[in-house]
C-alpha cells in the first residue's frame, strides 16, 4: 500500500491515477483513496494544503485503500508530518530531501528537521534529492527552473513504478496525449519519468530500495477496466436511458464532490443524454422536473447543501408523480462542512427531509463498480413507479478507482416506461394496481392534455381538490407507491458469512472495508455476516426476517447513526452502532475489533478485545 503526499499543486492526484492505471494493467486488483484539501492551490508547504493519494494493490482481492500505508512518498515536510500518524512502524518513507529547508520546515510549523531529530527513528527513511535530480535530468530540454521542477511528480512516479515493477507505457501514452500541444513539456515529463525509473535501476539507492514484484490477482476470465464512481454513475445513467429507450436531461450546478458526474456526462452527450448547467441548485432540479414533464427523464445531481436547496422541488415531483433521479454525492456536513471529505450523513435528509408526508425511494451505491447497477436501479424505480428517486453516493466513491469486471450489458432487462402508446386509452391519473404509476403523458399528445401542479389533486381527475377525504386518499397513494417498490426488488441476501452471531448491516461506501473486516473475522472463526443494503427506502421486505436470525446487529456508519435509527424505526430491532466522522473512510482494524467484541467464536474461549480508543468507535 502506497501513499503519495505533497502540495495540492504538486500533481499528487495525477501520480496516483497513473500508478493506478499501471497497476491495473499489471493485473492487480486495487482500491484507491484520493484525499485532498478544498483549496485548489493551497499555500505551498502548509499542513492544511497537503494533498494525498493512497492506493492498495495486490495479487489478492482488494476492497479497501487500506488502513496504514507501507510506503509514503512525501514531497515536503508538511506532507511527511500530517501522514506520519497513519503509518505502520517500519514503513518505508521516501522524501524529497531538497524540500527540507529551514524555510519550508517553518511553513510546516516544525521547529526541527524530522529527518535528523529522531522523529523517524522507527521508520526506514530514504531521502532522495528528487527536485535537484529532476531539474538536472530535464536540463538538456532547456526548460526554466520552475517548469523543470514541476516534472518532479513524474520523476518520483518513475521511481515508484520501478520499485513495484509496473509498466511505464500507460503513463508515457498519457503524457504524449496530454501534452501533444507542447512538445517541450511533453518531452521533459517523459525524460523525468525515465530518469526516476533509471535512478532506481542504476544507483546505490537499490541497496535500500528493492524492486518488488507483485503477483497478478486471481481475476476472473473477463474484461476489466479501471473506473471511478463518478465515471461509472455516468455510464450507468446513460445505460439506463438506453434500456428505457428514453433520452436523459441532466441538469446540474457545480458543487464538490458532485461536479465530476456532470463532467463525465458532458462527455457522453452522443449517448442519449443532454446536459444543462443551470444558474443554481434549485433551477437545476426544476429544469430536470420540467424535462420529465416534457417526456425526457430528468436527472439532477448535487451534494448535501445543494440537495437541501432542491428539496421543495422534489416535493413537487412527488406531488405531480413525475419520474426523476437525484444523485447526492455526500460530503462532510453540516453546512459547507468539509467539501472534499467523505461522510454518509445525508440519509435522514434523503428519507425524511421534505415538508409534508412526502415519501420517495432511496438507493445507495456501495463502491465505484456498484455505481453502474445502482444508477440503473434508480432509473428503473423512477420510471416503473413514476416517482423521484434519490441515489446516495459519496465523495469517496465518486473519486476512488477500482478494477471493474465489465458486465454483459445485453443480459440487462429493458426498462419499461408508462409512456402512452397509440392504443393507450386511459385517464392520465388512472394508476397501475401494482406500481401505482400514472400515465407518463407528455405535451405534444392531443389525447392527454392535462395540467399538473403542487396543489393537492383529485385522485382520479388530477384537478385541484381541497376535499378532506381525497387528501387522505392521496396521502395513502403516495405512501403505498413507495412501499410497492419493495415488491419488485430482490430479497436482501447475506453478502458473506454465517447467520446466528453478529450481523454487520451497512450501506454505501463502507462496503469495501466491511467486506475485508468480516472476511478477516470469519477466518478467525467468528460467527459474523455482512449484509450491505442497496435499498434504503423502502427496505427489502425480507430484511426483518433475515435480521431475526442474528444475536447482535452492528451498524457501522460514517455518521452518528442514521441507518441505525432507520432500522429501529422500520424494523423495531436493537442495534449496536459504530460511528466515525473524521472525513475518512472506516479502517478495517477498528471495525474488526468492534465485531470481535460481539461475535461468538467457534473457539471455546472467546478472547475479549478492547475497542481502540480514539478510533471513533463508540458503544451506544
Amino acid at each position, binding site marked *: 500500500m502506497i501513499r503519495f503526499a505533497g502540495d495540492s499543486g504538486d500533481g499528487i492526484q495525477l501520480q496516483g491515477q497513473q500508478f493506478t492505471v499501471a497497476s491495473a494493467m499489471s493485473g492487480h486488483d486495487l482500491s484507491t483513496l484520493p484525499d485532498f484539501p478544498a483549496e485548489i492551490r493551497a499555500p505551498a508547504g502548509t499542513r492544511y494544503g497537503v494533498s494525498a493519494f493512497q492506493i492498495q494493490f495486490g495479487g489478492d482481492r482488494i476492497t479497501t485503500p487500506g488502513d496504514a500505508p507501507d510506503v509514503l512518498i512525501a514531497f515536503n515536510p508538511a506532507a511527511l508530518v500530517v501522514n506520519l500518524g497513519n503509518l505502520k512502524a517500519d514503513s518505508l518513507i521516501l522524501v524529497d530531501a531538497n524540500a527540507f529547508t529551514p524555510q519550508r520546515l517553518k511553513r510546516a510549523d516544525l521547529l526541527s528537521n524530522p529527518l535528523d531529530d529522531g522523529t523517524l527513528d522507527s521508520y526506514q527513511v530514504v531521502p532522495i534529492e528528487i527536485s535537484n535530480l529532476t531539474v538536472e535530468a530535464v536540463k538538456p530540454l532547456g526548460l526554466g527552473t520552475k517548469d523543470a521542477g514541476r516534472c518532479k511528480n513524474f520523476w518520483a512516479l518513475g521511481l515508484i513504478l520501478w520499485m513495484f515493477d509496473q509498466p511505464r507505457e500507460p503513463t508515457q501514452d498519457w503524457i504524449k496525449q496530454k501534452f501533444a500541444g507542447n512538445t517541450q513539456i511533453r518531452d521533459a515529463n517523459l525524460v523525468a519519468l525515465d530518469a526516476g525509473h533509471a535512478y532506481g535501476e542504476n544507483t546505490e539507492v537499490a541497496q535500500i530500495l528493492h524492486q518488488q514484484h507483485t503477483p497478478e490477482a486471481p481475476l476472473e476470465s473477463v*474484461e*476489466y*477496466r479501471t473506473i471511478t464512481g463518478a465515471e461509472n454513475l455516468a455510464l450507468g445513467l446513460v445505460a439506463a436511458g*438506453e434500456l428505457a429507450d428514453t433520452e436523459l436531461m441532466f441538469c446540474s450546478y457545480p458543487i464538490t464532490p458532485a461536479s465530476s458526474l456532470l463532467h463525465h456526462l458532458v462527455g457522453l452527450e452522443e449517448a442519449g443524454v*443532454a446536459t444543462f448547467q443551470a444558474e*443554481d441548485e*434549485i433551477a437545476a432540479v426544476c429544469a430536470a422536473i*420540467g424535462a420529465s414533464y416534457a417526456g425526457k427523464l430528468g436527472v439532477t445531481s448535487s451534494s448535501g447543501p445543494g440537495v437541501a436547496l432542491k428539496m421543495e422541488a422534489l416535493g*413537487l415531483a412527488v406531488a405531480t408523480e413525475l419520474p426523476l433521479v437525484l444523485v447526492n454525492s455526500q460530503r462532510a456536513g453540516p453546512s459547507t462542512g468539509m467539501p472534499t471529505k467523505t461522510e454518509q450523513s445525508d440519509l435522514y435528509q434523503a428519507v425524511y427531509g421534505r415538508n409534508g408526508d412526502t415519501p420517495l425511494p432511496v438507493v445507495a451505491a456501495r463502491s465505484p463498480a456498484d455505481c453502474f447497477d445502482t444508477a440503473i436501479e434508480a432509473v428503473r424505480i423512477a420510471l416503473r413507479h413514476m416517482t423521484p428517486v434519490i441515489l446516495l453516493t459519496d465523495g469517496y466513491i465518486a473519486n476512488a478507482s477500482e478494477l471493474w469486471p465489465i458486465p454483459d450489458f445485453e443480459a440487462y432487462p429493458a426498462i419499461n416506461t408508462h409512456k402512452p402508446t397509440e392504443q393507450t386509452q386511459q385517464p392520465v391519473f388512472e394508476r397501475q394496481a401494482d406500481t401505482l404509476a400514472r400515465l407518463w403523458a407528455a405535451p405534444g399528445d392531443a389525447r392527454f392534455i392535462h395540467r399538473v401542479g403542487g396543489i393537492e389533486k383529485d385522485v382520479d381527475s388530477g384537478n385541484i381538490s381541497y376535499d378532506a377525504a381525497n387528501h387522505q386518499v392521496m396521502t395513502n397513494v403516495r405512501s403505498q407507491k413507495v412501499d410497492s417498490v419493495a415488491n419488485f426488488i430482490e430479497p436482501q441476501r447475506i453478502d458473506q458469512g454465517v447467520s446466528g452471531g453478529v450481523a454487520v448491516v451497512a450501506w454505501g461506501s463502507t462496503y469495501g472495508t466491511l467486506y475485508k473486516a468480516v472476511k478477516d473475522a470469519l477466518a478467525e472463526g467468528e460467527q459474523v455476516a455482512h449484509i450491505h443494503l442497496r435499498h434504503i427506502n423502502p427496505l427489502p421486505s425480507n430484511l426483518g426476517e433475515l435480521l431475526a436470525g442474528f444475536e447482535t446487529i452492528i451498524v457501522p456508519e460514517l455518521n452518528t447513526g442514521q441507518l441505525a435509527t432507520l432500522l429501529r424505526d422500520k424494523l423495531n430491532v436493537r442495534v449496536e452502532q459504530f460511528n466515525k466522522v473524521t472525513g475518512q473512510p472506516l479502517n478495517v482494524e477498528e471495525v474488526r475489533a468492534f465485531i470481535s467484541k460481539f461475535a461468538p467464536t467457534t473457539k471455546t474461549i472467546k478472547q475479549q478485545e478492547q475497542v481502540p480508543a480514539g478510533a471513533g468507535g463508540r458503544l451506544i
Partner: protein
Amino acid sequence: MNALTFKDFATDQEVRWCPGCGDYAILKSVHKALAEGGSVPEKTVFVSGIGCSSRLPYYVNTYGFHTIHGRAPAFATGVKLANPELEVWVVTGDGDGLSIGGNHLLHTLRRNIDLNILLFNNEIYGLTKGQYSPTSRPGTHSPTSPAGSVEAPLAPGQFAIGAGATFFARCVDIDQKTMPSLFNEAKNHKGSSFVEILQNCIVYNKDVFDDVAAKKTAADTQIHVRHGEPLLYGADNDKGLRLNTKSLSLETVTLGVDGVTLDDIQIHDETNPTLALLLANLHLPTAMGVILRTERAAFDDSYWSIRTHERRQKVKQLLRTGNMLDRRPK
C-alpha cells in the same frame, strides 16, 4: 379542421380570482391570443409559479404546470430544452418573478431561451394578503409596512433590459383591445419575450395604477409606441417625446409650442436598447406596446445546434473505453 375559437382554450375549471380582479381580463386576452395566433393546444404549455397570477394555467386548455414559488422560468427552461417544438408560456407576478424568483428570471432573459413570459405586476403580494412587493412604491402601506414602505422599488423593464432581454413590452390589464395582439407579438419573437402587465389588485392595492391606467386620462398618461413612428401621444396626438441630447433623457413637448415640429419628435426604434431603457423608465406618459425587440440567438437553438437527439454511441462500446485489462482466454 375548423379554426379554434377563444372558447376552445377555456377549461371547465371554476376560476377562483376575486370578483373584479384584473386577472380575468388578462385570462380572456390569453384565450383570444391563443385562438387568433393559431396556437395548437397539445403543443402549448403554460408554466407558472405561485401567487394569484400563477393559477392561470388551470384555466387554459393546453398542457400546464403550476410549479413552486419563483421557479417557473427554470421549469419552463427544462420543458423547452427537452422539447423545443413546444410553445411555452410562463405566467408570473411581481413577487414570484422579481422577488423569490428574480434569479431565474434574470438568467432566463440572459440566455434568451424561447419562452413567452407574462408578468402580472400589481405592486403587491395578493395571495398572502397584501404585503408590499419589490415593485411597491415607496410609502406603500401594508401589513408589513404599516408606516409605509421605505424600500426602493424594482422597475421590471429596466431589470429585463439590464439582464439582456431581447423583447420587452408593456400593457394595462383593462386594455383588452391590444392585449391579444401584443401577446402574439411576444409569442412570435424567437427568444425570451417579457411582457409586463399592469394589473389591478382590487383588494390589496386598488387603483394603484390609476395615474397611468384610468380610462378618462389614458390618452394623456400613456404613450403607445410603434416601431418607426414618431413618439406621439395625447387625446389630440399633439404631444410627443423629444430626446434631450444634453441630459440624455426623453422630455415631453407639444407640437406647435415653443417652435416644436414633428421633426423634433424622437422616432421609436424598438431595436435600440438605449432608447428602450429610456422608454421603459418613463412615467407619465408611461410607454405601452413593444418597447424593445432585438435579435439574438435563442438559447434552445444554440443548445441543440451543438447536440443531437440521436443515440450515436451505444453503451456496449462505451463500457470498453478507458484503461482495459483483458483476462478472457486467448
